[in-house]
């Protein structure tokens, strides 16, 4: 049995690959490499939903699960955390040094909208600063 973190990861991967909402049973069927209980998969899916990483909808008698956002937008939101310039974040992450080139900045900027949605209100005051990050910067 893998650690719960790895299981969450495997299940999120399955949801991302599916491209459409899946039931717990369907998710279980894609996780071929292990013997998992159906209830374990449901527990993990519920946990992911609670964390806001997955969302679910009732279809007939069963719940169908889908990722709350694309894998790319999550990567972008982590990179924005890493490259943004918000003072309060300083204790959250400690940077070595970082930088961004023009094209990378464009990619991040287009991903910003998604990240802002998932970040919610607590980052509203930092929106402008994240926006600046999109224009390219580096800092030690």
């Amino acid at each position: 049995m893998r650690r719960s973190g790895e299981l969450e990861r495997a299940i999120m991967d399955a949801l991302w690959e599916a491209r459409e909402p899946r039931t717990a049973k369907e998710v279980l069927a894609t996780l071929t490499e292990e013997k998992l209980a159906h209830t374990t998969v449901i527990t993990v899916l519920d946990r992911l939903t609670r964390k806001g990483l997955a969302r679910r909808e009732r279809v007939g008698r069963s719940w169908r699960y889908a990722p709350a956002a694309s894998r790319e937008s999550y990567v972008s939101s982590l990179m924005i955390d890493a490259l943004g310039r918000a003072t309060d974040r300083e204790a959250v992450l400690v940077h070595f040094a970082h930088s961004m080139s023009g094209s990378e900045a464009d990619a991040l900027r287009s991903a910003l909208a998604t990240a802002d949605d998932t970040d919610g209100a607590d980052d509203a005051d930092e929106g402008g600063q994240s926006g600046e990050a999109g224009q390219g910067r580096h800092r030690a």
Partner: protein
Amino acid sequence: MSHLLHFAVLIVCCVAAVRPLARAHWVQRMPRTALALWQAIGLTLELSLTGLLFSALFAPANQGLLPGLARLVTDPAGTDLVGRLAATLGGLFVAARLITLVMTCATTARARRKHRDLLRLISRADPALPGVAILDHPAAAAYCLPGRDSSIVISTGALGMLKPAHVRAVVAHEQAHLRQRHDLFLLPLLAWRRLTPRSTTLSEAIGAVRLLLEMLADDTCCRTRSRHDLADALARFSRDSGQLTTPLGGFAAADTGLAARTARLRAPAPAHSAARSLAVFALAATLLATPLSLFVLPM
């Protein structure tokens, strides 16, 4: 009244010391000692502010803070209105500091947990780089996420522009941050930010302390890795930014930091004398001993 005056003088001294110390160059030769001095200044300031607010309480009988507080508890009627007001103000200050510290810790912990949850889902491991989470993204980023379940993260963009020896130096630098818990050092300063959000003196202090922490991590890294590898890694991060558009306002200080770090790695200054370091430690100890003695001693 002499207690009050002493505390007031200490507060003025501490605040006045911030800018010169933040702009000093000698600190770069001894980051560890300089950080101890910063810590002493911070603690002295906190204690003196508390002492100043409480001192009206013990001014009449010229007692120390602790005897004064004890009297307030044992004989409340014997304390005059000014004394009670002072006790209230002092209590409020201590409460405000504690509450902002707890709030800062909580906000930080929440943001880290969120970041870590996502990281666990989308980063990957590389057998060649044990303990490092790799993020598939073309932008160059290397950072660490402090805390109980700490991690070091490097983007594929950064890996692409660094040689293996550079990567090992970057990882050693980040490990130094994590092992020495540099994030805890910044917490009290960031908590002050909530009480004085617009203070430029505080911004200078935070900037200076952050740069010293980077230099301390650089020094720790150089004990096991070559300083040239680390300097090269830093330079590659800054060269990558050469393609950037004009830097935005308030950006120059950070540039200076990167340049200063690279310069001191490339041409290390001669080892500073132990006497100088000792003198700074003595200064720090004296500074801190003053409010502490005022707390217990009657005048």
